[in-house]
C-alpha cells in the first residue's frame, strides 16, 4: 500500500534562517506531488505541485521554492524565512493521469518562525 511521510513534525526557526521540509511517497510510481500551507485560520492554500522530476509549478508568489530531485521526493525550501512563513505545511500525492482518484495527505509540519 502507498504511504506518505513528512518530516520534521514540528520546527521552530528564527527569522532569516533557511528551511528544508521533506516529503516522500512509498508504494507508487510517478505520483503527482503537492505542497499546501494552512496559515492561521482554517483554509489550505496550494503552494506548489509537480508532475515529474524537476517539474515544478508554483501557484502563488512567495518566499518559498520547491524541488523534486527524485520521483517520490518533494522538498520545500526557503533561503531566508519570514515571520509570515509560519504555518502548517502539508504534502500530498495523487496518481498520475487518474482524475478519478483521491488525494492523500501526509501528517504535516508545523513551522513557527520567531
Amino acid at each position, binding site marked *: 500500500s502507498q504511504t506518505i511521510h513528512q518530516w520534521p513534525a514540528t520546527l521552530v526557526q528564527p527569522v532569516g534562517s533557511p528551511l528544508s521540509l521533506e516529503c516522500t511517497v512509498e508504494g507508487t510510481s510517478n505520483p503527482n506531488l503537492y505542497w499546501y500551507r494552512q496559515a492561521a485560520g*482554517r483554509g*489550505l*492554500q*496550494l503552494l506548489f505541485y509537480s508532475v515529474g522530476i524537476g517539474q515544478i509549478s508554483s*501557484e502563488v508568489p512567495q518566499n518559498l521554492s520547491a524541488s523534486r530531485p527524485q520521483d517520490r521526493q518533494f522538498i520545500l525550501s526557503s533561503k531566508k524565512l519570514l515571520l509570515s512563513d509560519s504555518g502548517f505545511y502539508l504534502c500530498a500525492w495523487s496518481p498520475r493521469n487518474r482524475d478519478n482518484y483521491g*488525494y492523500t495527505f501526509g501528517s504535516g509540519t508545523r513551522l513557527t518562525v520567531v
Partner: protein
Amino acid sequence: GIQVEQSPPDLILQEGANSTLRCNFSDSVNNLQWFHQNPWGQLINLFYIPSGTKQNGRLSATTVATERYSLLYISSSQTTDSGVYFCAPRRGGGADGLTFGKGTHLIIQP
C-alpha cells in the same frame, strides 16, 4: 479558480445529534473530496465523491454536480467527530491540486 463556500462555519452539537454540512462550488468538477482534520492537524480522507451518494458507517455524502453542491451527513455524533471538515473540489484535466473551502468547525459536546 473554483470558489468554494462551506456552511455553517461553526457548529456545536450534543453527542448523539445529527448534522448536515454543505459545500457549494462555482464550477463543474470531476473530483471532490471531504476531509476531517483532527486536533493534531492530520487530514483524513472521508469520501471521494465527484457525484452521487456514498455511505461509510455513520457518515454519508451526496454530490449533485449539475447543481454544484455537496452535502456531508453525520448521524449519531460522537465526541471524536469534533474537528474541522473540509470540502475540496477539483476541475480536473490536469495535475493542479484540490481547492479547499474554509471548513466547518464542528464541536460535539458530551
